């Protein structure tokens, strides 16, 4: 053929356009594997291109055999086209009936197999002659005389099945859906249905020899092709709009987060990478280009806190739980900032990588305010005790100055009388009696005061040892964390409960723990250790030990530190250990101290075992 064939150009163009559109959908599917409708459309486009090619072949066939062969090879792309349409409708409309889909594809499959078993093809038993016909101003080959296969009605049924399937899916979508669904049902469903109906009806007419024209499946396919183009351009528009909305949303979110001084972060546990907002990087003192690798972030965290942070994140990731970690961030030479990270894990799904997402907040100011409050509270409690003591002292001074003053005056009077020539012995006797009575009075005052200072022994109940340690840990936990002290506790199993006043015993251990924390305050932050230990003591009793790795007790002070008002601290009253020892003794136990092997001190509260035979 010398001159350019219009039919060839047209068919090729439509096929190419379809392939291009199919390719775009393939790309879309590759970007998002969940968009299976896109893959289905690619299959449809491939099938269609094949159909267009075989049609072209048939139109240019020179012998009946060649025409028959072209029709035969028309079937694989038709099968592909059918599978594509069924799958596309299934995924895009989502309302197709599965059994109808499988039946349609099955029928087409049977026809495809049959097509290659029969000769010349499925549709014809015999093709006798072909003819030439002018189509679009050029000669094309059409079938002139042929015998239609007896089984051709199966082809008609398969085409009808496809039409019913598409119609059914469209109607169902129309009924169930809203406006957008109805649009889609009308546009996609409608155009597909129209194509299937027109193309198969037309083909049937040709095959049954009712019309002497070429088999034309390609032109009606322009209908769904146009619909798909329209749908895709609408998608593009929607993507643009969504992108804008997304950007707006993100800006709003960042603004809100910025106003709340919250940094947003996301940690990909598998790739160990971090995404974070500007605010989050600012909190971490990270430059824009530093983000990404989780290790960069971790380097900014105080070395003592790194393991805990990673552990908590991993825990959240594995359990799919929420996490909240407080840690310090190194700020160059300045004091470390305290940061709170809260997050929620997105558990590893089949396609979703495991992530933890959350917010970040600098709570240094808040924490220091809390610390100050706590400090103030401590001071208040201390000054409260001092005040109470000064009241006690004042009352003591008055009460005791009466008998003391009287004793003094009587002694002085006696002295004066004895200097006279004839002392009055009766009076002197009376004076001595008065002195003795006032001495007794003074002692009574002191006894009363002592009993006031001494805690009245509370109800003695069996106290579980581990519970006691837990109580103390709960009380000092926050304080220890803020002072960077690592508190551990060990309790031997099967310790008997100790009979005692739980509150008083807690007070003793609390006092010892606080002392221990004071003792380790001078050590570097990562070496402050306090150990609470409960173990079996002598005669079945229980030893509760509080040891530290501080400076230890200076030699010769092991006894003195238990004396009232003896203190080594600037803010101390020197009553803690004296009262603690009093409590220990009121429980029939002892409170002793010694230096341990690590250079620190160990205070041992021994509580005897409950007596088996109580009177």
């Amino acid at each position, binding site marked *: 053929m010398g001159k350019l064939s219009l039919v060839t150009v047209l068919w090729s163009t439509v096929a190419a356009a379809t392939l291009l559109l199919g390719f775009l959908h393939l790309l879309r599917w590759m970007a998002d594997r969940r968009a299976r409708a896109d893959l289905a459309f690619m299959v449809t486009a491939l099938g269609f291109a094949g159909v267009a090619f075989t049609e072209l072949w048939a139109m240019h066939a020179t012998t009946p055999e060649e025409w028959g062969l072209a029709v035969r090879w028309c079937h694989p792309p038709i099968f592909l086209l059918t599978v594509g349409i069924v799958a596309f409708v299934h995924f895009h409309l989502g309302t197709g009936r599965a059994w109808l889909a499988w039946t349609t594809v099955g029928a087409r499959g049977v026809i495809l197999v049959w097509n290659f078993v029969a000769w010349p093809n499925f549709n014809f038993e015999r093709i006798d002659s072909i003819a030439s016909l002018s189509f679009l101003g050029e000669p094309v080959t059409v079938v002139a005389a042929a015998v239609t296969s007896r089984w051709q009605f199966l082809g008609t049924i398969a085409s009808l099945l496809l039409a019913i399937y598409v119609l059914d899916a469209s109607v169902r979508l129309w009924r169930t859906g809203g406006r957008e669904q109805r649009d889609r049902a009308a546009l996609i469903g409608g155009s597909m249905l129209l194509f299937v109906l027109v193309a198969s009806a037309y083909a049937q007419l040709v095959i049954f020899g009712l019309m002497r024209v070429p088999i034309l499946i390609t032109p009606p396919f322009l209908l769904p092709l146009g619909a798909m183009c329209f749908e895709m351009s609408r998608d593009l528009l929607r993507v643009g709009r969504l992108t804008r909305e997304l950007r707006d949303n993100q800006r709003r979110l960042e603004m809100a987060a910025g106003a709340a001084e919250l940094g947003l972060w996301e940690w990909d546990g598998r790739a160990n990478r971090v995404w974070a907002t500007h605010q989050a990087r600012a909190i971490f003192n990270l430059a824009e280009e530093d983000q990404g690798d989780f290790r960069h972030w971790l380097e900014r965290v105080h070395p003592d806190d790194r393991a805990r942070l990673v552990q908590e994140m991993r825990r959240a990731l594995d359990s799919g739980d929420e996490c909240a970690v407080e840690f310090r961030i190194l700020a160059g030479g300045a004091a470390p900032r305290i940061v709170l990270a809260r997050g929620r894990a997105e558990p590893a799904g089949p396609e979703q990588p495991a992530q933890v997402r959350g917010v970040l907040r600098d709570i240094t100011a808040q924490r220091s305010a809390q610390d100050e409050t706590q400090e103030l509270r401590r001071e208040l409690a201390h000054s409260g005790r001092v005040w109470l003591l000064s009241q006690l002292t*004042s009352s003591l*001074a*008055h009460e005791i*100055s*009466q*008998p*003391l*003053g*009287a*004793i*003094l*005056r*009587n002694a*002085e*009077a006696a002295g*004066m*009388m004895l200097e*006279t020539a004839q002392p009055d012995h009766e*009076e002197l006797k009376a*004076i001595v009696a*008065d002195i003795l*009575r*006032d001495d007794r*009075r003074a002692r009574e005052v002191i006894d009363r005061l002592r009993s006031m200072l001494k805690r009245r022994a509370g109800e003695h109940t069996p106290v579980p040892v581990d519970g006691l340690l837990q109580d103390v840990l709960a009380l000092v936990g926050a304080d220890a964390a803020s002072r960077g002290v690592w508190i551990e506790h060990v309790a031997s199993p099967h310790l008997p409960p100790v009979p005692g006043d739980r509150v008083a015993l807690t007070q003793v251990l609390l006092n010892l723990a606080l002392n221990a924390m004071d003792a380790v305050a001078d050590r570097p932050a990562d070496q402050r250790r306090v150990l609470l230990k409960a173990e079996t003591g002598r005669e079945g009793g229980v030893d509760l030990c509080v040891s530290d790795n501080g400076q230890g007790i200076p030699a010769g002070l092991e006894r003195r530190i238990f004396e009232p008002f003896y203190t080594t601290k600037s803010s101390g009253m020197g009553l803690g250990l004296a009262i603690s020892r009093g409590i220990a003794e009121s429980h029939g136990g002892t409170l002793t101290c010694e230096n341990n092997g690590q250079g620190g001190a160990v205070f041992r509260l021994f509580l005897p075992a409950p007596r088996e035979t109580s009177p």
Partner: protein
Amino acid sequence: MITPTVHVVDDDESYVRASARVLSSAGFVVRAFTSGKEFLAAAGPDSRGCVVADLEMPGLDGLALQAEMVRAGVLMPVVFLSGHGDIPRTVRAMQEGAVDFVEKTAPKHKLLDAVRRALARDVSESDRRLKAAAVRERLASLTPREHEVLGEVVRGLLNKQVAAKLGISERTVKMHRTSITRKLGVHSTARLAVLTREAGLFEAG
């Protein structure tokens, strides 16, 4: 004349007795009371001597007792006994005119010294009060006009000025002054001034 007596007031019976013993041994006449009320019932404006009172007593405490004494005209100096240094109370007691403070547990010489000082002050005070009473008696005999003239004279005005101020003649002033001199037995203007001051007269002018 009434014997100067040391009145010991303390709610602590034993301390009162012991203090009384010391003070008696030192040669003072002592009366002991175990409450402020008891003391006030026994004392009067004529009582002489001093009071040794505990600052802290149930019921009527030291300061209240002092106030009650002033109201009843019992004008003896007070020595307060305190159990311990109590500055605000001390200051208040000083402002109300206490003579001294002695700690209960202070050695006896401090107590005796304080009592001696208080007794001496009582003597001088009562002396001054007697004199003033005598002067007031004599001043009471002056006529209102003579009283007026005396006031101006004491202020240092000359007869002529007094006459001008009161709107009377100089002669009449001289007459009044002669009468005043006669009634009071004092000649010089300076002596008149001293006398009126002792009596607590014309002080506001």
